[in-house]
């Protein structure tokens, strides 16, 4: 941050350029980090860097943790081609099952929640959600009706 800020140009006739704040903050961030490091090394109490739950080591937890960012990445990658409804239903179903919900509860709930989300954001709040084959078929059906 410090070196990147150093490369920012200064403005002619201005006493304060765009580099001043980033440089100041990078120096302060460095100082505070050093102080925290020193405190943890010299402190009387041995502090742990991370206080993670022990249950994190179970394979189920590891899969659940991995699935949270994976499902967001899955949405970003596939929503534009497969459409919102399919992608969000898959995400909801997989996450609910990973969190130990029963299959026969997760499946209908995933469909209902993603449909409600779609209706709320697409029809009420007018957010242009990504559309795929299912959405297009539904639109045609609603026009036909």
């Amino acid at each position: 941050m410090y070196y990147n800020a150093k490369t920012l140009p200064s403005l002619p006739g201005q006493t304060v350029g765009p580099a001043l704040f980033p440089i100041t903050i990078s120096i302060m961030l460095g100082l505070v980090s050093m102080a925290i490091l020193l405190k943890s090394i010299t402190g009387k109490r041995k502090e742990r860097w991370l206080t993670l739950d022990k249950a994190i080591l179970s394979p189920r937890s590891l899969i659940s943790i991995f699935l949270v960012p994976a499902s967001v990445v899955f949405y970003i990658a596939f929503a534009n081609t497969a459409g919102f409804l399919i992608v969000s239903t898959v995400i909801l179903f997989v996450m609910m099952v990973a969190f130990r919900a029963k299959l026969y509860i997760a499946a209908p709930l995933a469909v209902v929640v993603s449909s409600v989300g779609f209706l709320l954001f697409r029809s009420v709040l007018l957010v242009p959600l990504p559309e795929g084959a299912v959405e297009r078929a539904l639109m045609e059906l609603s026009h036909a009706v």
Partner: protein
Amino acid sequence: MLSEVIANILTTQTIIAIIGAAIFGMFMGAIPGLTATMATALLVPVTFFLDPVPAIATMITAVAVAIFAGDIPGCLLRMPGTPASAAYTDEAYQMALKGDAKKALGIGLLSSSFGGLFATAVLVFVAPSLAEFAVRFSSAEYFWLVVLGLSCAAGIGASDPLKGLAMLMLGLAVSMVGMNNNAGIPRFTFGEMALLDGVSLIPMMVGMFGISEILRYATNSKRDFGDPIRSTGSAIRTSAAIIARYPVQLLRGSALGTVVGALPGAGADIAAWMSMGISKSRSKTPAKFGSGHPEGLVEAGAANNSSLASAWIPALVFGIPGDSITAIVIGVLYMKNLNPGPELFTTNAPQLYSLFAIFVIANLIMIPVGWAAIHGGSYITRIPRRIIMPCILLFCILGSYSINNSTFDIAIMLFFGVLAYFLEEAGFPIAPAILGVVLGPMLENYFVTTMTSSGGDIFAFVSRPLAAVIALILVSVWSIPLIWRLRQKGSASITRS
């Protein structure tokens, strides 16, 4: 003006927004792990599509109701629904064990409502006169106010002030991204067009408060709740009679909450902890605390809700957020062309007074909605998190996307969510980072404006009496705790020798 205020409130959109937000707030508050701040962040995409008054009304109502609703799982499961309820969870749980769950929740409901109304009265009377005074402020005074706000944010909210300070710096660093600086030069954009406008605050907050909580749940999804205690005991009328026995505590809690809430950086949870402490130290029967004694409940219940309304005083008058909730609200105010600052009180007076009226309505509507929730409390707290958490994940994605219709914002949400999870597990608080992002651009802007207008004279920051006074207050905020700690160390070493 009164007719304009009434016309603003009595629209179908506003009424539906208030009722919907009250129910939403009740669910968010009653489910442990979902906070009032998360409720506010998830409401932002909805406010995008509402008129200014109903948009802000949803936030006021949802937060006020959520803070009370946090008492429900605290009382029935010994698991506070929001951090603001943590201070008196044990006390309420002990009452529930004695069969007085409804009484404990009734006390929480009525004292919350009173605290909220008390602080609203202060907001209505203090904010306009403070705004009249603030018209005289120049960029130098505002600069010191922002520094004061940042100092409080780093110091008060964190158990370790150094970690709070580090998070504040991180927030300030994030606020530097983009070309929203006086020179208009892109900084830290890494050639990414989407970053030219800076890091979007809402996706960042949705990630930090929503995704991090989902990740925390994912680490141990077995950790669902036990069976709640059946909410037995008598209802609201008895609670009102108990509160009537503690008028001093009720007023003291409301007053302390109002003062704490108005300080930048200190929120409802700190107000409740402080009130609980004061209540115990001033009580005639301190030994009864911890065994299901209602005295502390009355005081702390009033304190956490009163701090919510008073946090709006610095937010509306100076544009400086009192807590992470008002940090989000300030973003929405800008989005709705209700730019906070002293001018708001003259240019948009009817809309502003409509918001004050909504504070009153929110704290009154809380009573029937809360009453219903108390009676169905054990059902609300039984909604399994294995179902709720995936739904929240989907709404986090939807909320982040709908601000700019951009998938880049979803990536921002994910990045900050994962970062916040690890930082929180390492003991770093999140709120200072949010305040850093909100206040960073203001800090730089006021600094550059003062320096430019004075031709680079650094003494311009203290040459005006008002600016000098605020600077002195700032120095004392920094030095008093240091001196106090040094004196404590000194007296401890004398005692030891």
